[in-house]
């Protein structure tokens, strides 16, 4: 990853690739899965990295949109996206055969500590998006994975098939109890942390959830990685719009992250993008 912080480090260039939509389907309430033919990005993307997508030209919104790569294989990448504003609405309208362009792979993804035997993944809502490639990678590496997956309601649970295919154990929670446990995903996450004694915890979801998981992991003495969302203009480290306050100073989510060591993050200084 190139970052001015690493101005003298060896550079792994991101690519600007013209891609074609292969499929674009609704997979849960308000959630779509878009598959792109992106051979060059697909060949290099690592779990937890993201792409910066130019969804439309000539639209009244200008900026790219950052999306984690959910799954990658062969010449294909897949993105799981929640429809929120004009960008994701336009994304949902893109049809197979249409072209767009992506910058990627971007950012630092998840790391698997040497010798880890057991991992806990905690995903809230679309927090499951950057964990698809991760759970598959863990399976490849022979690391046993437990997953705590939460959503507001049954119809909004995503990526269950991927987790079930690769994890040893998947526990569900919904805010309304329509699937799995009734309540927040932090409850089963805490239990799994105690029961399974993982060597590493990965968390992605609303920042309050990540923070709660980070605290539980810290209390249990288990290393924890979190993937943070920030508003991003350039996506490549140049504009400083995506800063995260850490113990080692201000970092850029787009290239120093989005995955950070949870104990590095100064949670109080960080801010979640407004959401309604």
């Amino acid at each position, binding site marked *: 990853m190139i970052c*001015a912080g690493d*101005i003298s480090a060896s550079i792994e260039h991101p690519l600007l690739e013209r891609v074609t939509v292969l499929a674009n389907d609704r997979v849960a309430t308000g959630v779509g899965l878009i598959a792109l033919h992106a051979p060059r990005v697909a060949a290099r993307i690592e779990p937890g990295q993201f792409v910066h997508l130019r969804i439309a030209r000539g639209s009244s919104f*200008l900026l790219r949109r950052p999306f984690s790569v959910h799954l990658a294989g062969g010449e294909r990448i897949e993105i799981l996206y929640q429809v929120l504003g004009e960008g994701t609405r336009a994304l949902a309208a893109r049809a197979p055969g249409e072209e767009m362009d992506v910058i990627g792979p971007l950012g630092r993804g998840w790391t698997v500590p040497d010798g880890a035997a057991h991992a806990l993944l905690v995903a809230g809502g679309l927090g499951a998006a950057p964990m698809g490639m991760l759970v598959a990678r863990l399976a490849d590496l022979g690391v046993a994975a437990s997953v705590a997956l939460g959503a507001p309601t049954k119809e909004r649970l995503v990526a269950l098939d991927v987790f079930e295919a690769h994890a040893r154990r998947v526990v569900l929670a919904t805010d309304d109890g329509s699937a799995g446990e009734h309540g927040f995903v932090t409850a089963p996450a805490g239990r799994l942390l105690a029961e399974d004694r993982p060597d590493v915890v990965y968390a992605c979801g609303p920042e309050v959830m990540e923070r709660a998981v980070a605290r539980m992991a810290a209390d249990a003495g288990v290393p924890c990685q979190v993937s943070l969302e920030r508003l991003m*203009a*350039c996506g490549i480290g140049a504009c400083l719009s995506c800063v995260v306050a850490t113990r080692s100073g201000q970092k850029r989510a787009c290239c120093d992250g989005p995955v950070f060591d949870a104990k590095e993050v100064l949670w109080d200084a960080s*801010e979640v993008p407004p959401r309604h």
Partner: protein
Amino acid sequence: MPPKSPRDTDRHHEQGSRTGPDVESSVTDNQTGTVDLRVKVAGIELRNPVMSASGTFASGFEYAAFVEPSRLGALVTKGVSLEPWAGNASPRIAETASGMLNSIGLQNPGVEVFIARDLAWLSTWDVPVVVNVSGHSVEEYVAVVERLDAEVGIDALEVNISCPNVDAGGMAFGTDCSSAAEVTRRVRAVTGKPLIVKLSPNVTDIAEIARAVEAEGADAVSLINTLLGMAIDAHSFKPKLARAVGGLSGPAIKPVALRMVWQVSRAVGIPVIGMGGIMTGEDAVEFMLAGASAVAVGTANFVDPTATLRVIDGIVAFCREHGIARASELTGALRG
């Protein structure tokens, strides 16, 4: 650091490892002839009229995968201050119709780190380097300029008296003739390098400010910096930026930028560097017709990291289509 003279503008020709600017400066096409893209601004010869806009390109390192710095007319760096600045709280950007707001707040590591890290890297490339200078006070501008004046790898300084994103200093200096004049006079006294003053559009009469800085020895003016704006998230009842207000950039502001470039270029004798919403070569041509000698590309880099190159290509295509031999002929060529 004492003022240096003569001005340090022929660095490129001294460094053996670099190719002269003429190598890439013209494009030949047998059918329509050659387009000479070279322009001269504030005494620096640029191989083409397209620069990066300060703060949107960092020091070029992050864009190197997409744009080889030596392809640019000049590389303008992010603003640098004397000490490190932390910048503003997050969120720092918000999207608006055909534009964006930013309130980065001139986060930078301070001039010493900049010189040791960014400038060292930039010196490996054959490109005129323009360093953008920030300050909370006249004294800070002077101190930064003085420090930068000592560096050979710098071709010009751009003094930003127009940043809407800092509380002290910044734009305050650019919205009043006498303080704009004072900053210019004071930094002029400590550097022999070409001096560009970057103007704020948040004023009643930008031509008046331009004349004031010209009178104090600015070699060029660049404009526009961002328009002060605000975005609100109705559903949370809160401003979208942590700092409430920020600077508006992108195509939304192009009409205002073009108008100001046109006004200023008719009011001053020094060259004008035009910017504000340039996305294409045709946009750049419009700024030149309005009176700009060179242009800078900002927000467009975020949309397309190769934007600067596309703009250069677009200027070439335009000149060919219209049988224009030298891009510099475009400057001020607007017809009544």
